[in-house]
């Protein structure tokens, strides 16, 4: 049972590597992998697809910087943030904006599981925690 799960994870990782182009998830490659799985259904295809989905979601999240903001944000600022994150992680990272008025003012950037924040709400939370 454990061995089968391990094999499924390993197979899903191989599929994920096939789905990457320059460290980023390629839509065409993902479509090709899914077509391959459709044509040649392996044993436990459902488990493989779940593991593959989880890995692809993680890879997408690692290759994407979600920039939450309150107020307006320029496209240039979004691009600058994406470029800075790409330099930091050593892989191409794209930026996507998401409005969040709870921040009051400022930005919060999520890259995978990492969070970078410079917002009024964050500073107020730090103030409350420090007191």
């Amino acid at each position: 049972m454990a061995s089968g799960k391990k094999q499924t994870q390993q197979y899903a990782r191989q599929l994920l590597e096939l789905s990457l182009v320059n460290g980023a998830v390629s839509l065409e490659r993902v479509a090709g992998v899914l077509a391959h799985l459709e044509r040649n259904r392996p044993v436990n295809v459902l488990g493989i697809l779940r593991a593959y989905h989880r890995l692809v979601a993680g890879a997408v999240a690692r290759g994407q910087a979600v920039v939450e903001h309150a107020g307006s944000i320029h496209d240039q600022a979004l691009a600058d943030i994406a470029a800075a994150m790409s330099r930091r992680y050593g892989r191409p990272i794209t930026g996507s904006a998401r409005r969040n008025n709870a921040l009051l003012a400022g930005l919060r950037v999520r890259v995978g599981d990492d969070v970078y924040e410079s917002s009024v709400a964050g500073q107020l939370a730090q103030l409350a925690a420090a007191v």
Partner: protein
Amino acid sequence: MTHPLFLAAAQGAAQPGIVETFGLETKYIIMQVVSFLIVLGVLYKFGIKPVTATMEERNRKIEAGIRHAEEMQAKLAATQAESAVIVKQAHGEAARIVDEARKTAKDFLDKQAQEATAKANDLIAKAQQATQLEHRRMLAEARAEVARLVVTTTERVLARKLTDADRAAYNDAATRELTGV
């Protein structure tokens, strides 16, 4: 003892006056003497000798009793003296035991008092610590509540007062900060 009688009888025979006067005859006298001797022997053997032996035995017993009594008296005196010594020693021992008991009781009371004092001090210290902890907890809760109120109020005020220009300026500053990471 019978010898003078024989002499008297012999003299009587020589001098007939007395024998004839008193009507004495030798054979009767001899028979009387023999009888007397027999009676004397019987009395001596069965009367005087046992009585004498009994008396001597009683005398020995009395002397032994007296000696025994004297020994007993001496032993009694020795025993009384020994008893007096023992009683004196017992008095001394009893006094020592009483002193030790008093000293032990005093030590026990002192120890109990010290333990009670230590426990009381410990309880007081714990109560003070609990009071201090409670005080600190209340201060922390009050501080946290004040901070929460301040933050909430600040958020509401900022949400109303911040203009789009303020937010844009803050966003630019945040962008510069984040790109410099």
